[in-house]
């Protein structure tokens, strides 16, 4: 069986991170497995973990009253889920539900925060990686909002100017 440090190293989120940093982070990491239908995180509950998805599919969802869960995006092997552990009040913003069997690495939020405070260089490195993913997700959300394949904008999508 592979050791946690090796698994961390194999995940794209940590590509190029120094071995000593990976060894340092492995202290916060455990291997986790979710069956289809199980939740990795629930909306509005304590966000105690950050997940590196190794394989499988995860739906990021929110619950719409009188409708049910609405899927905002799916995540796959190589993706990450969760940065709510970084900021107070440390509550998950969305549900994350396994759509298939999911293998992931789970890093403790408190443990990560403590390590980053102790080792600001590593903290900054991680921050850069989180903001890159967050920026990509923001851009993707904006493209989704544009409804690219829907009616042409000339057919009635409101413009910003009056």
């Amino acid at each position, binding site marked *: 069986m592979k050791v946690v440090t090796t698994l961390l190293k194999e995940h794209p989120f940590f590509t190029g991170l120094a071995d000593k940093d990976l060894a340092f982070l492995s202290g916060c990491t455990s291997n986790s497995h979710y069956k289809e239908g199980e939740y990795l995180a629930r909306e509005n509950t304590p966000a105690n973990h950050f997940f590196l998805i190794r394989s499988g599919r995860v*739906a990021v969802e929110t619950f719409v009253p009188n409708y049910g869960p609405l899927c905002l995006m*799916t995540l*796959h092997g190589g993706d990450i889920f969760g940065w709510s552990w970084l900021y107070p009040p440390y509550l998950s913003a969305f549900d994350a539900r396994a759509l298939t069997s999911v293998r992931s690495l789970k890093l403790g939020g408190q443990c990560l925060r403590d390590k980053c405070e102790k080792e600001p260089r590593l903290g900054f490195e991680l921050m850069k990686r989180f903001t890159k993913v967050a920026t990509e997700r923001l851009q993707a959300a904006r*493209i989704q909002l544009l*409804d*690219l394949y829907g009616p042409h904008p000339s057919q009635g999508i409101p413009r910003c100017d009056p």
Partner: protein
Amino acid sequence: MIPELWRVTHRREEFPGTITLSLTREAGGPSPIQPGQFNMLYAFGAGEAAISLSGSSASPAEPLTHTIKGQGLATQALCKLEVGTQLGIRGPFGQGWPTHLAANRPLVIIAGGLGLAPLRPLIYSFLKGHLPARRLQVFYGARRPEEMLYQPELGHWRSSFELVTSVDHASTDWNGHIGVITDPLRVTHLECNDALVFVCGPEIMMRFCIQVLLHKGVTESNIYLSMERNMKCAIGICGHCQWGPNFVCKDGPVFCYRDIRSWFQINSL
């Protein structure tokens, strides 16, 4: 150029508002057309619209296939044509996909929404062994699973080459990616040094895809796009489709990104 008479021999609704027509020429005879080229389809009394070939181009004797989304007067009238009715056709026009460049190389096709239509002839060529590409990867993004084109064919395609589908919205019983097509494009391995990439879809979607492709190391000269501009004459006379120094009807609609980059980035063009 005067339209010739053609007749609808088959009609399939892909999803409400978008149909695929098979057409045969009333006068008979072959009608050669290349993948990426388009015809001007004339719905009598309503008007003409530029529509790309969306079916096989293998034999000029096969019926001509076009996929049409009802947008305005002409395309909505074309969408209403029943089997047995006549329409007028001028064409084919324009420069198609440079398939000769695909010889022994990996071909990547990126389609958004209706943009799959002009790319489907290439998929057919690949499946028939007529396209010299070494490998085919297809990325196809749509609004919802119900609004995906050619649904009966997607399963066969998936088992014949790498097909990555993505929709903006879906319930979780949909098996593909939910999000935008740039996400799977970003994480999928492409043979970037050598890959030839053909892209067709809404212009903003193509812009975002190009950003990802360039970031992955695909060179500008290996990216080809199919552009859309309003057409009238389709033979480079009226100037309706002028785009920078190019006429989309005559110099395009397929362009190499390297050659049009500067026009692509000007908003008002």
